[in-house]
């Protein structure tokens, strides 16, 4: 992971020395997947199916939080957004299409390169940076998203404090993470990884947070959870929003 600064046609990429809570082993694991990230049939198949489900949740949260903008075609127009742990930009690009001025952060340099190349080819402007949220200073964002990241960090409290610092006054935060249940162990760690739905080595079940644990961390950082929704799976509906938090859950968070 060499630090180099480059700018592609549309999206900018910056690399910074890392000093955060992302486990370097984890970053290396995801970095290896970078090339495959945009292939809906490849290693990230599950992520491609998950994406519309969590986007539907985020869009509803946006419409609820900014009711006037919700009716508009580009509800995030004029707003700054940051996607923390953006991978190759699966969620970051939709935020840009919804009108936001978006920054994407990732701990794996390969991801940032893949993300920037893809955004440029799609004609989207996204400010991609290879760095950790903990080192970000003096910038704040109306929308902060971090999907499936907190279960990979070494110190959730420090990570959440950094997310809080990045949240602008009156801003909105949406997080998602797997729950630490028998169900998630069977479905995510055993079944999905073994069946090749999720790359091997993606999940370290011991690091998963329950909704109560995550809520406690958020409260300690002065944040307030206003909504929690599960993502469940069944053979008929596939992945879908659900009242069951057993597998994976999303949280809408504001300053307390």
């Amino acid at each position: 992971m060499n630090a180099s600064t480059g700018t592609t046609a549309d999206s900018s990429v910056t690399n910074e020395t890392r000093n955060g809570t992302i486990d370097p082993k984890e970053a290396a694991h995801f970095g290896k997947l970078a090339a495959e990230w945009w292939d809906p049939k490849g290693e990230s198949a599950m992520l491609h199916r998950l994406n519309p489900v969590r986007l539907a949740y985020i869009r509803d949260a946006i419409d609820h939080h900014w009711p006037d903008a919700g009716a508009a075609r580009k509800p995030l127009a004029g707003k700054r957004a940051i996607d923390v742990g953006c991978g190759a930009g699966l969620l970051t690009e939709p935020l840009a299409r919804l009108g936001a001025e978006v920054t994407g952060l990732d701990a794996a340099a390969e991801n940032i390169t893949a993300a920037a190349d893809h955004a440029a080819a799609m004609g989207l402007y996204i400010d991609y940076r290879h760095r950790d949220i903990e080192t970000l200073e003096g910038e704040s964002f109306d929308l902060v998203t971090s999907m499936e990241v907190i279960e990979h960090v070494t110190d959730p409290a420090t990570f959440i404090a950094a997310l809080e610092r990045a949240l602008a006054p009156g801003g909105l935060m949406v997080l998602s993470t797997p729950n630490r249940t028998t169900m998630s162990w069977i479905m995510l760690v055993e079944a999905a990884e073994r069946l090749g739905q999720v790359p091997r080595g993606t999940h370290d079940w011991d690091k998963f947070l329950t909704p109560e644990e995550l809520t406690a961390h958020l409260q300690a950082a002065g944040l307030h959870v206003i909504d929690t929704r599960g993502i469940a799976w069944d053979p008929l509906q596939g992945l879908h929003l659900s009242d069951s938090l057993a597998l994976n859950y999303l949280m809408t968070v504001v300053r307390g």
Partner: protein
Amino acid sequence: MTETQHSDILIMGAGPAGLALALALARSGMSVRVVDRISPERLADPEFDGRASALASTSWQMLQNLGLADALWRDACPIDRIAVSDGLRKGGLDFDAGVDGMGVMMPNSLLRAALFEAASADADIDLVMGADVAARTIDAHRATITLDDGRAFSASLLVGAEGRVSPTRDLAGITLGRWSYHQRGIVTAVTLEKPHKNTAFEIFYPDGPVAILPLNDDDDGRPMASIVWTVPEGKADAWVSLSDRAFGAALTKMSGGFLGAITPVAPRSNWPLTLCQASAMVAPRIALVGDSAHIIHPIAGQGLNLGLRDVAALAQVLGEGARLGLDPGDLAQLKRYQDWRMLDNAMMAAATDVLNRLYGLPGSAPSLVRRLGMQIVGRTGLIRRFIIDEARGASGDLPDLLMASD
């Protein structure tokens, strides 16, 4: 060469399917460009398309939802009844529409003109008419069209709406299953001596069916109708070159005289009748709508209705995707459109095919079977309901655009 201009969606073909799609997508906030090889004048010329279409009530609802009611209602002739008969024998089927009607008849040239005008007035739609396409390419991120004057347009999704000959379909590598009926449809407009009372007549002869479809009165208050006369391939030229007087006399006789004398008032065109079904409706960064994806026998007047149902389904899928900021060319999303439409299109193709074959057999035994069949159909509430719903376009799982909003 000028710089490539990008839009979310690039629609090839400014026919009714292409333009209705453009209007629907623009309403969901997408930027749309429509490219057609013909000029705007030609598009609205009755000589270019002298047909009239039966618009099912759901299609009519959709045009109203797209804001076209004011421009079109004056020319829309409501269909209150469909009368189906086996030649001029008794024992025909009669479908009354009931309160909500069976849709309207509308000359295609007026429909094309109204759609074009609405699309021209929409700031999110860019119309490129009289365009000659020199090159088409697709890569992982976009589709690009280059015109022979050097202009180039790219988009996240390319939609083929070019009608039966679709270079976009070919570009996608989608094959077309094609069966010829060895029949031609002779199309013209006529005046009638007696009022049609908003009835659509389908009269079946061994050579093929004659459809007499109600249109609004002409400026002199004479009742008008659109004719689709299905004839065997070999006889088509003879029928087309017949004098107006002889053609009118033949029609008057065919109709049994209950509409009085029938007088042709427009040039006669003749259309090949085929059953075509594309093997797929989507491919990476490509979707097909309307006749580019399927052509059916005009016996039930459903071709354009199917195309508009494609449009409503695709507009809904893309609109839902746009609400989430998804890439319009996202294949998983496009497949939802295909899954929604393929079955409906295939069922309609099969139904019209069976209808045409059933009535296409000469001889008195088949005729008796047919008459019995019609009576059975007439008595069986369920089948009757299906036929009426199918004519109204109200069967299956309907996209929002086809429904009245409260």
